[in-house]
């Protein structure tokens, strides 16, 4: 019993530092990858391959003046960036990295994850509202509308997986994929969940709450210093979390051929998905706002419902 407490402790701290460090490194890594795909080297001056940029960025963020605008709603303004960090970090508690290596194996892990990512929206909303700035408000408004439309089928797209594995527990879901990953049997669900995941983490092409070209910096226009850094970190944490979740739910989590340990398989799959997220940013332009909403309600939601019905029908037929 005491050993398992030690193990849990190690996993907790490993996750905390690994994930936050990973998010910091991801800032640099993303710029290198974007550079690669845009036929230029990207940041390559600080340290080996420019990797020192991650540290330099953090130092810079800490050294910046941390300014709270006098016209803002002070308490909410300060609370908003912490919300996204807390929610995203809590989301990591249910991720199963390998058999036995997880912080908590909740029997409602999937719902917990959905709840935490939904809470992260409050950060954007409150940040936009408390800034008392038109651009920030527009960003928060867009974020709210985007979340309302994309939350719905984000949850629904996972229900097919839940029906097939018969459990909300992520460990059970991974174990249910021994005979074939859910990406094959639930491809529509996978597709919809990826799209919703991008929208959830405000990544391009669905970064309308930020939309540099139209809204200055969107909801974090008024933020500076480490408060801005926390929004930034939250976004990258979101990318890692969504990648880890897609891996767990659709790509068989830690499952893989025996020549690599399970945790490496998990890391490799998540890493590939993170790279895919960055590729999306490099390749696809941002849709117009009404196009985004139309895509959500008119295409993604019906697609999810069809997927749900077909999955249910097939399961009933197999049982009969």
């Amino acid at each position, binding site marked *: 019993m005491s050993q398992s407490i030690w193990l849990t402790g190690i996993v907790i701290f490993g996750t905390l530092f690994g994930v936050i460090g990973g998010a910091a490194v991801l800032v640099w890594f993303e710029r290198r990858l974007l550079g*690669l*795909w*845009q*036929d*230029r*080297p990207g940041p390559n001056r600080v340290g080996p391959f420019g990797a020192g940029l991650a540290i330099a960025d953090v130092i810079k963020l800490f050294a910046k003046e941390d300014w709270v605008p006098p016209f803002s709603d002070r308490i909410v303004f300060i609370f908003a960036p912490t919300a996204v960090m807390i929610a995203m970090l809590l989301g990591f508690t249910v991720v199963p990295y390998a058999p036995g290596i997880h912080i908590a194996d909740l029997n409602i892990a999937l719902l917990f994850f959905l709840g935490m990512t939904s809470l992260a929206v409050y950060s954007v909303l409150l940040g936009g509202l408390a800034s008392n700035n038109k651009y920030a408000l527009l960003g928060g408004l867009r974020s709210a509308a985007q979340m309302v439309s994309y939350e719905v089928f984000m949850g629904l797209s996972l229900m097919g997986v839940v029906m097939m594995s018969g459990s909300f527990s992520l460990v059970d879901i991974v174990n249910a994929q021994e005979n074939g990953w859910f990406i094959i049997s639930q491809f529509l669900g996978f597709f919809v969940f990826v799209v919703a995941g991008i929208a959830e983490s405000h990544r391009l092409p669905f970064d309308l709450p930020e939309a540099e070209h139209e809204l200055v910096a969107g909801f974090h226009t008024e933020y500076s210093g480490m408060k801005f850094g926390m929004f930034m970190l939250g976004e990258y944490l979101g990318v890692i979390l969504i990648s880890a979740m897609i891996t767990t739910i659709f790509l068989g989590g830690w499952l893989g051929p025996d020549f690599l340990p399970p945790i490496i398989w998990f890391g490799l799959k998540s890493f590939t998905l993170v790279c895919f997220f960055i*590729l*999306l940013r*490099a*390749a*696809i332009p941002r849709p117009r706002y009404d196009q985004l909403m139309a895509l959500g309600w008119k*295409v993604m939601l019906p697609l999810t419902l069809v997927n749900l019905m077909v999955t249910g029908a097939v399961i009933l037929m197999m049982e009969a």
Partner: protein
Amino acid sequence: MFSAIISQLRTLWQILLHTFSGYETVQYPEEKPYLAPRYRGRIVLTRDPDGVERCVACNLCAVACPVDCIALQKTEDEDGRWYPEFFRINFSRCIMCGFCEEACPTYSIQLTPDFEMCEYDRQNMVYEKEHLLIDGPGKYPGYNFYRVAGKAIGGKAKGEAENESPPVDIRSLLP
């Protein structure tokens, strides 16, 4: 809708192919790009093959300059040659458009393939004549304005220039 998704996936694939396409950019301070001889960079004042400055202070460059960064004052030497008393280019205004070079009737003002002229003090961007003058003829070797122009100066009367016939003697009856 379906074709739109295919189009997006095709975009993704083509961007992914760029992984192997190498860099378009140059690592500047270590690796310098090739600048063509006609590159429009730092402005110089050239001299003719005899080593005398070519500028005749006609002011055409200053007139042509869209940002008014050239200032000069004409004066004459004892031979009657025109030359600038001072010639000043404010490079913090200059946009390297090359209009001055096109306007110049004597090939004096020329643009060179050099753009590395950063200064910490803005005042240092103002170049005087001694900073602008170079020793050679620049892009046009062998050209000497006074040797081909009809203007009479000390040591060269009317009609003595290259390819110039002597002036017509209007009082003579000979054809």
